[in-house]
């Protein structure tokens, strides 16, 4: 599955670690939520080093609050779209980015199609495990299809409300 980051297809340095595979001393890994929570310290501080790249695949029916103690040390949180229509991870993404100020990579996984890129970007995702190669190739074009946005989200885009207000006479503003 191609990974898109920064508008371009990149190689995924993170290895999805199987449940029974041993934790490598080095290297970037993605762990299941269950495995990660069993022993977070073992995953986050491997081989005595503090900054080993560790990510967690977080299911969409589990409260993201359980991750709060580890947010500043996690390199990646991968949220899951089991089917196109299941939008729980959009809420999780906004909570992680906007309420809990998660600064690492927020990755969309599962049924990730081009038709969701705009929603995902606005919700705070910055990496996409895209289902179809062609969708990954056209990522940049599709991501810029819309140029006006109504809602304020953590992506910082200026909303239509505010663009209009910038043109208002002072009398209305005050």
């Amino acid at each position, binding site marked *: 599955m191609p990974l898109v980051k920064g508008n371009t297809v990149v190689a995924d340095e993170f290895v999805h670690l199987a449940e029974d595979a041993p934790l490598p001393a080095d290297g970037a890994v993605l762990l299941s939520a269950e495995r990660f929570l069993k022993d977070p310290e073992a995953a986050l501080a491997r081989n005595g080093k503090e900054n080993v790249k560790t990510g967690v695949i977080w299911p969409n029916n589990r409260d993201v609050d359980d991750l709060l103690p580890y947010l500043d040390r996690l390199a990646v949180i991968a949220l899951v779209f089991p089917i*196109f*229509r*299941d*939008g*729980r991870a*959009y*809420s*999780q993404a*906004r909570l992680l980015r*906007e*309420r809990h100020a998660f600064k690492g990579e927020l990755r969309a996984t599962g049924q990730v*199609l081009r*038709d969701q890129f*705009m*929603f*995902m*970007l*606005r*919700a705070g995702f910055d990496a996409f495990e895209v289902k179809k190669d*062609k969708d990954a190739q056209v990522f940049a074009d599709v991501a810029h*299809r*819309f*140029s*006006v*946005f*109504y*809602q*304020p*989200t953590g992506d910082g885009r200026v909303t*239509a*409300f505010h*663009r*209009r*207000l910038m043109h*208002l006479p002072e009398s*209305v*503003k*005050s």
Partner: protein
Amino acid sequence: MYAYDELDRTIVNERVSEFRDQVARRLSGELTEDEFKSLRLMNGVYLQLHAYMLRIAIPYGTLSSKQMRALAHVARKYDRGYGHFTTRQNIQYNWIKLAELPDALSDLAEVGIHGMQTSGNCIRNVTADQWAGVAPGEVEDPRIWAEILRQYSTLHPEFSFLPRKFKFAITASEHDRAAIKVHDIGLRIHKNAQGETGFEVLVGGGLGRTPFIGKTINEFVGQRDILSYVEAILRVYNQYGRRDNIYKARIKILVHELGIEKFKQEVEEEWAQMRDGALALQDAEIEDIRSRFFYPKYDNLSDTPDELKKALQNPNFEAWYKNSIAPHKQPGYAIVTLSLKPVGGPPGDATAEQMDEIADLAEKYSFGEIRVGHEQNLALPHVAKRDLPALWRALDKIGVATPNVNLVSDIIACPGLDYCSLANARSIPIAQELTRRFANPDTANLIGRLHINISGCINACGHHHVGHIGILGVEKNGEEFYQITIGGRADENAALGHLVGPAVPYDQVADVIEDIVEAYLALRQRPQELFVDAVKRLGVEPFKERVYATR
């Protein structure tokens, strides 16, 4: 009227261009029908029994003459010359070819209308009182808030893939014409003891398989907090609403299963963490939206002009005037309802010619503005009373002056088995038969206000639960049967109807309805007692006896 600006138009155009690409990918086989389904639904495109159906949003039911002409143009160019106005301030076309859908949407985009979010598991077209801004005694024009909600909900990055569809309705009048108690979120604008304007928020109402009347979650949410408050509700719903069973996925089930107290607690905990964030509305933002609504420059006119007095001597005009004209906040003006319920016609249908003519008449007599109500009728909201006789003659000529508004033949009906792939039974022919049975205006006037609602299946698009008389089509051993309920209503005293008895076959429905109406005429305390009030006083029993005694 609210006029879309360059930013609103840009979003609509960009959406059409995205959909054009999606249709092309479907036609080339790049997308399977299954993949395409969610995408087309979010643009109002259904696959029905015979063809694709296109549903177009008419936000809060307000249309300009120019927009109405564009609707007529689409009916004529891409469809079979007519459209169907629905119970949700939408219009549907039934026969547009998939390959032509992007062109039809592109033509509509030129006048700022679209099919966005008229379907799919997102926040649907926001509906409002169709007399908003003109009804006397309104706290304020609820469309300002419907428009704020429309913008807030359009292509919402968090709530475009909810567990199920999500419907908002809003009113600012004491008399609820927007049926807010049977919506996922109903908003009632009112003033608190301090004289501040805010919202009573109701949640978890809805019809369908499991009907509920909405419950008040908060008596008063202030203006600056309304968007954050509804976002808190939606976020709780998005995370905890059921997704394992589509019949249990609506917010009404979540509210019911948690109980309103627990649900409120969840919402308010969420709200506490975000209410002062980016969604807190500034006065300038509200004023900006308010300033984009244009209101007619009314003249100072007589409230009882000679033209009207003279015309009222004509019994035909008088009959129409009596039930089609409503008081206006401006003296000398009236709100005129156009009946899309001619005797023998399918409720809510309008031809391209009628639409064009109505657009012209709106320009001539109603400052170029038209309204669409959930009863599947249209209205001209600003007509000078002195113009009523001339307007009536013109409306009569095109068949939209049937004097039956709010009477027994002003029937709400879904398209039923004739068009809809979900339906189990026909709705339109039942409505047509009933309009013929009650075609005599004297009988209809004797009966008084009586709402009949017909749905062809349990999904309740015809809102049968809240009809004074509700008719629900069901299928039994391959045959159409109809369950009949009485005592429902969709106004500020919203209630669900009660079953009268066993379902009856198709060919007995009209007889049964006649029996129920006759029983009412015999049982009412006085002519002013409405059917629905008589049912409330008497219960179902006397009606049941009358219907089943001889069957």
